[in-house]
């Protein structure tokens, strides 16, 4: 009886969570040029229009480059940190780990401002590499959270066995550890990629003459005649990120299962 009320509430909450995403395709395929109800006819012309905006294509390329580089760097740093925090004990461990995880709870505008100040002072230009520096900083904590689970559920005696059998540390990592945690690494790469592709405020502060996709999207939002195309773009982005995240979740679970751990659910 009480459970039924609770269940109803949870469904209403899920509708609240999904409302924006469900509305997006409705407007993307709507021929009316104003984003409002009632809907007019079905059309795919906004998707065709997207294919004609060359500045948008350049922004997508910039974002893809930034996201790939950031994901690789953040995941590499994440592997080091996750190994250090699950495998070793060293002085100041909690403090150092806490500091590395700090961007997770720091307002992003603070990270953006801090990097901008340094760039202004050093006389460097803003641009793609500045954005990458910021994105690696905010992605690393997420990769650590995922990889720590992967490393923690890994049986350390497997590595010890390899070393006892005469493998070097590096060979042990390559032959034993890496194959067992590779699903976690793929998951961390995909999550970082997704975060970087979507990140706005750091890119907004640090992007130079080449805007990232979210920064370009932000400029599109100011022009009412471009809004239907924004809806079409949003639909594509949502489909792609749901696909990516589903793949990431699949690998994360497989990683935990392969290493013999119990799934606790969720990335965070």
């Amino acid at each position, binding site marked *: 009886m*009480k*459970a039924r009320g*609770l269940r109803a*509430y*949870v469904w209403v*909450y899920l509708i*609240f*969570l999904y*409302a*924006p*995403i469900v509305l*997006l395709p409705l407007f993307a395929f709507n021929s009316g040029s*104003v984003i*409002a109800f009632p809907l007019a006819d079905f059309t795919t012309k906004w998707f065709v229009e997207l294919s004609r905006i060359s500045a948008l294509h350049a922004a997508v390329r910039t974002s893809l480059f930034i996201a790939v580089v950031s994901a690789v760097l953040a995941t*590499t740093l*994440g592997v080091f*940190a996750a*190994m*250090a*925090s699950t*495998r*070793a*004990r*060293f002085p100041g*461990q909690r403090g*150092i*780990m806490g*500091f*590395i995880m700090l961007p997770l709870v*720091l*307002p*992003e*505008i*603070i*990270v953006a*401002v*801090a*990097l901008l*100040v*340094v760039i202004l*002072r050093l*006389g460097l230009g803003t641009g793609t590499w500045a954005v990458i520096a910021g994105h*690696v900083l905010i992605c*690393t904590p997420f990769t*650590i959270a995922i990889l720590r689970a992967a490393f923690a559920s890994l049986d350390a005696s497997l590595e010890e066995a390899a070393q006892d059998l005469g493998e070097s540390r590096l060979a042990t990592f390559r032959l034993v550890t890496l194959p067992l945690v590779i699903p976690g690494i793929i998951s961390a790469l995909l999550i970082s990629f997704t975060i970087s592709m*979507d990140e*706005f405020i750091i890119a907004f*502060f640090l992007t130079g003459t080449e805007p990232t996709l*979210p920064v370009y*999207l932000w400029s599109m*939002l100011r022009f009412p005649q471009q809004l239907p195309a*924004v809806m079409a773009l*949003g639909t594509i*982005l*949502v489909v792609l*990120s*749901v696909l990516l995240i589903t793949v990431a979740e699949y690998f994360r679970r497989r990683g935990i299962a392969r290493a013999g751990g119990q799934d606790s*659910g*969720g990335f*965070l």
Partner: protein
Amino acid sequence: MSIGAGLQRKLRSKSGAGLLLISPPALYAAALLAVPLGAVLIMSFWTQTGIRDFDMTLTLAHYREAFADPLYRQLLLRSLGIAGAVTVVTVVLAFPVAYFVSFHVAPNRKALWIFLITIPFWTSYLIRVFLWKVILGFNGVVNSGLQGIGLIDEPLSFLLYNVNAVVITLAHAYAPFAILPIYVALEKIDRSLLEAAQDLGENAVMRFLRVTLPLALPGVLAAILIVFIPTIGDYVTPRLVGGPDGLMIANMIHTLFLRLNNAPLGAALSVIAMITVAIAALALMLLTRWITTGGKR
């Protein structure tokens, strides 16, 4: 030779290997987080004289201005107020959902539910915020829906471009951040404690209030922290749905840095925002420690 051998021994030891492993991410965070944050602090005491020129004489003028000028004071207080409201709304709405997933969903389907809850979070933030503008707008979904049913004749104008819209949109954006820590805390609760309470004659409500809620409190406090901190610095939501009365401190920081060429004042506001966040975080962590140790005694 002996130094090399000493170093090798050191590296083979557990703590040496740990330090070696942690150094790349730690150095990265030090160079790109600690140093820049320090630079923000120093710059907040300077004065900007040109686009890239600064008078490096240390002065407290920007802090005086930030606290004395009603504009900045109002923005700071409003950001605090909005972040507080968002936190309360988000956590209160999220708790029953976390409770449902932890207590009423079959164990093998829990991961799927958590995944369902986190999916919207991974879709474009800008687009999600913009869609709330569409939902709450003058010809928006809510208004045309209510008019369609015949509940209202005129569109409601209090939905968009004010503080309410900011709170609703942010409560949506940070929902998973609140649900996950509460869910994790609820999952840790030993179910036999609940049975014991029941056997000792507590009814469902008292059992919830006296056993479940206190044990879930660390998760609730974590949720409060993880929602409050990023919302106070949010830029996009106030800009898109807040209207002139819904702007927050991040919007002002952006304007000062990139439009008004007053980076030092922007830096001072950033420092004040950071200190506020740190105080809130510290207070909540102390509260958590006090509650958890008080429980064990």
